[in-house]
């Protein structure tokens, strides 16, 4: 009976398609929170029992092996016998995916390490608790505006809320090959004109180039240095096609066009390290965390590199301001205990641990001024590297916290890719601005 077979076959085909598209529908399945071993937060309904039975807070940590959080847990627990801490180690990518899954209806952790560039997506949705009532203007007794630099505080704020305590910070400075500059008798560039000149001379002599990267982190640095910005003042329209912005991007892309910069593109992978090792790259811009990467990946280059403030444009220095924040998901049941853990992680002693364990720059000003953090770094020719980044933080700007940020970031990056391939700067940025304006008008 062919008709019956037909129906059967179609059903079968449908099933196969369904089975194989299971990945395509991947947005749907709410993965059951992997923390099956959790002791459930069962005690809060019995006030009498809370004193005896410790409450367990779950901490998600994306630092991985070099975690500065894992080492402080034991001391925190002995100081706070009513709280038990369970740390889950994740990597950055996994954490972003898992966080989306649990925020959309799973059992949330109580404290998370939060890449500050994730905040634009989460903040407008109210995914994280406002820390200001818990902090009451202070962190471990120190007023917040004394504990943090102004740029850091700006990054932590959304509307009139404070959504994270900045734990380490990320701003960009110039990494350069001191040995090659010495050899050529060149000074460290401090302005764009000098940058172009030094990079040009290095390149002309086969000593490597300045790295051009098309991502928003790197491109935005040139915008800020020229007094431009990504969006306008009240985040309602694109500003990256303003005259100052076009001038900045034309300068940056011009370095690719004249051969003084090397377009570090998708051909080469995400990190510039291979280019450092084989000598293609002699200067680049990146955050303090990159020092740790270099020490791991290029130990043989010890002594060759230094860091300096990134060359200033017409408007002075500038950088994007990011880093890692500690935040409490709004759905957490243990916010009070979670806040105590955050405060503990933010003590001076534990903040220097961020540098010692993760090689990242601690966000607390007191920690940045401490001797432990400012030791001479033999890899960088005994330079006190973190002071360079601290200096950069004072003029750094966080990315705008708007819900459409990921799409804005993508549109701007596409324009930068086009510019790197030689397309006209004004046209590329204008086209991206039209898209961004449309996104923001919604």
């Amino acid at each position: 009976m062919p008709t019956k077979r037909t129906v059967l076959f179609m059903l079968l085909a449908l099933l196969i398609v369904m089975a194989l598209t299971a990945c395509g529908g991947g947005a749907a399945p709410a993965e059951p929170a992997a923390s099956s071993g959790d002791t459930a937060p069962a005690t809060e309904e019995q006030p009498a029992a809370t004193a005896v039975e410790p409450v367990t807070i779950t901490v998600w940590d994306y630092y991985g092996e070099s975690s500065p959080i894992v080492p402080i847990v034991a001391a925190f627990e002995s100081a706070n016998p009513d709280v038990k801490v369970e740390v889950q180690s994740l990597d950055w990518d996994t954490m972003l995916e898992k966080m989306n899954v649990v925020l959309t209806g799973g059992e949330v952790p109580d404290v998370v390490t939060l890449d500050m560039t994730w905040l634009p997506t989460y903040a407008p949705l109210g995914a994280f608790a406002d820390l200001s009532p818990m902090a009451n203007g202070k962190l471990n007794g120190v007023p917040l505006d004394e504990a943090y630099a102004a740029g850091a505080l700006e990054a932590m704020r959304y509307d009139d809320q404070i959504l994270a305590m900045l734990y380490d910070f990320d701003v960009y400075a110039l990494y350069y090959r001191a040995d090659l500059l010495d050899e050529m008798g060149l000074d460290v560039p401090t302005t764009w004109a000098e940058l172009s000149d030094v990079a040009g001379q290095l390149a002309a002599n086969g000593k490597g180039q300045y790295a051009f990267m098309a991502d928003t982190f790197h491109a935005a640095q040139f915008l800020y240095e020229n007094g431009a910005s990504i969006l306008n003042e009240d985040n309602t329209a694109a500003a990256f096609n303003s005259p100052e912005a076009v001038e900045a991007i034309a300068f940056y892309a011009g370095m690719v066009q004249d051969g003084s910069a090397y377009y570090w593109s998708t051909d080469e992978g995400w990190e510039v390290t291979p280019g450092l090792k084989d000598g293609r790259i002699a200067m680049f811009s990146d955050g303090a965390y990159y020092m740790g990467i270099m020490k791991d990946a290029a130990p043989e280059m010890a002594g060759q590199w230094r860091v300096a403030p990134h060359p200033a444009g017409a408007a002075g220095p500038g950088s994007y301001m990011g880093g890692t924040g500690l935040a409490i998901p709004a759905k957490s049941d243990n916010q009070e205990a979670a806040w105590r853990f955050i405060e503990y992680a933010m003590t001076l002693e534990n903040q220097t641990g961020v540098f010692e364990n993760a090689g990242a720059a601690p966000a607390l000003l007191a920690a940045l001024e401490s001797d432990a953090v400012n030791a001479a770094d033999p890899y960088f020719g005994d330079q006190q590297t973190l002071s360079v980044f601290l200096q950069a933080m004072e003029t750094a700007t966080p990315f705008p916290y708007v819900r459409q940020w990921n799409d804005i970031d993508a549109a701007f990056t596409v324009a930068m890719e086009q510019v790197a391939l030689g397309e006209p700067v004004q046209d590329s940025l204008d086209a991206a601005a039209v898209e961004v304006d449309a996104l923001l008008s919604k």
Partner: protein
Amino acid sequence: MSSLSVPAFIRGIRKHGLAYLFIAVPVLAAIIFLLIPMVTSFWWSFNEYNGIQPPRFVGLDNYVKLITGDKIFRHALKNTTFFVFFGMLIGPTLGLLTALLLNQKVRFQALFRTAYFLPVMTSLVVVATIWRMLYNRNGLLNIGLAALGLKPIGWLSDPQWAMMSIVIASVWQGFGFEMVIFLAALQNIPKELYDAAAIDGADGRRKFWYITLPALRPVLFFVYVIGIIESYQVFDQVFVMTSGGPVYSTTTLVYYLYSRFIDLRLGYASAIAYVLFIILIIFSLIQWRFFMEKD
């Protein structure tokens, strides 16, 4: 259908209780992990939903926006179709050719078979990482081009090339699967047919055309259905090699879906999933008519 009365069904359960129990496990798994998420996702696709705030019903808005107003979606559809077309053009052809070669009495047949199949068993992420190195500006492929006196190609940085580069890497990774299936099917074709054809004076090409190819038809169907369904969902290679760039040139449907998920736009992501689902059903039906109806 008259034989399926209720008492008969109950008798059936009594008699084959254990068998039903065994069937129940995958059926339950399919319901929990497939059917329920699919229905949920279908519902989300009519909502604006970020997972944190309650969903807001928007009717067909997501679909309308996707099809009429979304430039990136059009890129994704175009890129994915490009990937499927060239992948399905080259992959199975290459698989069939190698299978035909290996079906001869070649020496070290097992060795070749293993060698061609090895990439299939390798993780796609590993393969993509290795190919990314080959595609480097100073990578092996460009060194080869330079040796031939040709200009280097921006394999993954030139929007004209990037999708083709992903196709090449994917075909290399996947054609061994098709080869093994074709080889198995070839070895199942009765020798008598070829003998009879030889007696009738058929040459090699005719034998291929009138015996081999018809005998392979069900297998061809299988290879193309599975191949197209899988190709339309290309993701890992893009994730590892290009992140959808440069200039949207490698943004595929599932990569775009993923980026919407990461951006907590679950309704929109679900709509993309259903558009993809409909495309796949249409393809499966077309193929089924094309390959099976002649029987």
